[in-house]
C-alpha cells in the first residue's frame, strides 16, 4: 500500500521505510515552536523534567506575538519568563518586540520551515507550513516541553482526505474563500484527526500567500495538518527565504485516501463564515443586509503582503464608512516595512483605517479591537466562536481581505460589485 505525502514525511522522520494510518510512531522534530501564551506553561513543565537543557537551541522558535507589546502586567510577566528562558538556553530563534511577527507568517519568512520538515508548535495554526510541503501540526504546552527537551514527539499516523483543486479562481476569490468553502462543505470536524492533502492544476493559480491561508485553516476543519505539493513557486519561495536544504516528498500513486473531493475554483464566489462557527458559510450574494461596526484585516491567516495589497487596492482614494473602525495589522515587521515602501500604509491611513504593529491581539479577543455587546466585525481572522473577539453577544464574520475592505467602505457586510 502506498503512502500519502504526510505519511512519507513522518516515516522518514521516524526512521521507518513505511508507515500506515493508525500506527503510533516517534518522530524527530526539525522545529519546536511556542508563543507568549503557550511557552510559559511549557517552560514550567520543562523545568519540572529531569533533563539537561534543550535538545537543540537552533531548532526552537519562541515568538512573542499574542499579547505584545504587552497589554498588561500579567502578559509582561509571561514574556519576561520566556525571555529569561531564551537567554538562559541561548535560544537562537527568540523573536521579541522589534523582531517579532505573527509566528506563522514569521517562520516561513525567516526560512525556518521548509519542505519535508516535521514541525510541532504550541499554537493550533502551526499547520500553516503545510503550504511549503512540510508536516506541521499544533500541540499543547506539555508536548512542546517534551519536544524542546528531547527533539521528538509521538504521533498517530493520520489517514487523509484528498482535495483536487481545479480551474482558475475568479478575480475576487482568494485562498480564504477556498478554505471557507471547504470548511462549509465538510464541517468543523470534517477532517478530524486527518491530513488534508491538496492537489490539482488549480494550485498553479494560487500564490504562496493563498496557500498559507488555506493550510492555516486546516485546523478549523479539525484536520491534523494541511499540505500542498512542492511546485516551482514553493521552491522559489524557499530558496529566497531560507538557507536550509529542503526535501520534496510526493504521495504515492496508490496512496489510500478516506475521501476525495473535487473543487472547481472557477465556480467559487467570495465566501463568508457567519457566527459562531467557521462552517456557517454563505456566498457573498446571500449575506443580506448586515450593518457592521468593525473590520479587522490581519492575523496569521490573512496578514501577508497579498492580503494588504488587495485591501489597499480597494481602499485607495476612498473612505472607511462613518461608524466603522477599520484595523489593519501587517503580520511581520518585514511585511509592515514592505507595505510602507509600496505606499500601502499611506492608503490605509488616508482611508481612515488604523495600522498596528504586528500582533495576534484582536483575533483571540486579547486587545487592539475588542468588541462590545451586539457589535459586528468582518474579520480576516480564523475563528468566529462565541466571545472570541470580545463580548459573548458580539458577532464575527470571517472573510477575505477583499470582502473586509469592501465592507469597511460600505459599513455593511459586502463584496465586490463587478
Amino acid at each position, binding site marked *: 500500500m502506498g503512502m500519502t505525502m504526510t505519511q512519507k514525511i513522518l516515516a522518514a522522520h521516524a526512521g521507518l521505510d513505511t508507515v500506515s494510518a493508525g500506527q503510533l510512531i516517534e518522530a524527530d522534530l526539525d522545529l519546536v515552536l511556542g508563543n507568549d*501564551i*503557550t511557552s*510559559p*506553561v511549557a517552560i*514550567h*513543565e520543562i523545568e*519540572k*523534567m*529531569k533533563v539537561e537543557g534543550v535538545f537543540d537551541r537552533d531548532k526552537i522558535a519562541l515568538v512573542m506575538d*499574542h*499579547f505584545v507589546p504587552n*497589554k*498588561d502586567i*500579567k*502578559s509582561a510577566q*509571561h514574556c519576561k519568563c520566556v525571555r529569561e528562558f531564551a537567554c538562559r538556553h541561548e535560544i537562537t530563534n527568540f523573536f521579541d518586540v522589534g523582531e517579532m511577527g505573527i509566528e506563522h507568517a514569521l517562520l516561513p519568512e525567516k526560512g525556518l520551515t521548509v519542505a519535508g520538515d516535521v514541525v510541532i*508548535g*504550541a*499554537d*493550533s495554526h*502551526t499547520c500553516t507550513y503545510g503550504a511549503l510541503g512540510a508536516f506541521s501540526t*499544533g*500541540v*499543547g*504546552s*506539555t*508536548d512542546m*516541553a*517534551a519536544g524542546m527537551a528531547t527533539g521528538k514527539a509521538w504521533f498517530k499516523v493520520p489517514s487523509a482526505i484528498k482535495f483536487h483543486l481545479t480551474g482558475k479562481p475568479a478575480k475576487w476569490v482568494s485562498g480564504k474563500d477556498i478554505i471557507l468553502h471547504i470548511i462549509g462543505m465538510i464541517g*468543523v*470536524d470534517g477532517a*478530524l*484527526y486527518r491530513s488534508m492533502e491538496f492537489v490539482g492544476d488549480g494550485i498553479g493559480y494560487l500564490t504562496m500567500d493563498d496557500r498559507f491561508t488555506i493550510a492555516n485553516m486546516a*485546523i478549523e476543519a*479539525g484536520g*491534523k495538518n494541511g499540505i500542498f505539493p512542492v511546485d516551482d513557486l514553493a521552491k522559489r519561495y524557499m530558496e529566497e527565504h531560507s538557507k536550509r536544504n529542503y526535501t520534496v516528498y510526493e504521495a504515492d500513486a496508490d496512496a489510500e485516501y478516506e475521501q476525495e473531493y473535487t473543487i472547481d475554483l472557477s465556480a467559487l464566489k467570495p465566501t463568508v463564515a457567519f457566527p459562531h*462557527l467557521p462552517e456557517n458559510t454563505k456566498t457573498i450574494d446571500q449575506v443580506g443586509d448586515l450593518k457592521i461596526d468593525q473590520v479587522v484585516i490581519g492575523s496569521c491567516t490573512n496578514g501577508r503582503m497579498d492580503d494588504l495589497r488587495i485591501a489597499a487596492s480597494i481602499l485607495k482614494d476612498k473612505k472607511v464608512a462613518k461608524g466603522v473602525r477599520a484595523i489593519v495589522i501587517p503580520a511581520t515587521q518585514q511585511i509592515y516595512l514592505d507595505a510602507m515602501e509600496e505606499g500601502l500604509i499611506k492608503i490605509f491611513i488616508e482611508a481612515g483605517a488604523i495600522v498596528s504593529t504586528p500582533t495576534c491581539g484582536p483575533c*483571540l*479577543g*486579547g486587545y487592539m479591537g475588542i468588541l462590545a455587546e451586539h457589535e459586528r466585525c468582518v474579520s480576516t481572522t480564523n*475563528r468566529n*466562536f*462565541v*466571545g*472570541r473577539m470580545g463580548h*459573548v453577544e458580539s458577532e464575527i464574520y470571517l472573510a477575505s481581505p477583499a470582502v473586509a475592505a469592501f465592507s469597511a467602505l460600505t459599513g455593511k457586510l459586502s463584496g465586490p460589485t463587478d
Partner: protein
Amino acid sequence: MKAANGHVFKYGDNVDTDVIIPARYLNSSDPKELATHCMEDIDKDFVKNVSEGDIIVADKNFGCGSSREHAPIAIKAAGISCVIAETFARIFYRNAINIGLPIVECKEAAADIEAGDEVEVNFDTGIITDKTKGTTYQGQAFPAFMQKIIDCEGLVNYINQKAQV
C-alpha cells in the same frame, strides 16, 4: 486507576476552547485562577455549581479551536473528574492526556446522559454507568500507558518516574 464519580454538566457540539477558557484570561497560567473562569462564556453558573468529582458530557468535537493547554487545565482545576464526549478535537485530546485529565469517547453515553445525572466511569474497563437512569455504556478503555500518564497527573511526571526506574 480510580473510577470517576459525580454529577453531570451537559453541553452540545463543538464546545470550543474559547468558551472553555476565554483568551482574556490567558494572561494567567495559574490553574486555580483559570478554574475560576472555566466555561464562563457558555455557562456562567458552571463555576458556582461544580463540585469536586463532577463530570462533563458533550456531543461532537469537544475542545475544538486553539491549542491552549489552559483549557483542560481549567477543567481539571475546577474539579471535573472526567469528560465524556462523542468525539474530541485532536489537540484537546492530546493535551488532556498530557496533563492528566481523563477523557472518554462514547457516542451512546453522550447522547443519553442528561444534566444532573449521577455517573460513574471505570477507566480500567471503559464502562460508563448512569446511576440515575440505571443504564451502562461501553466507552473506549485507556491503553495501560495512558492510564499511567493520568495516574502520574500528566506526561512530565510520567517521564520523570520512568527515568527513575
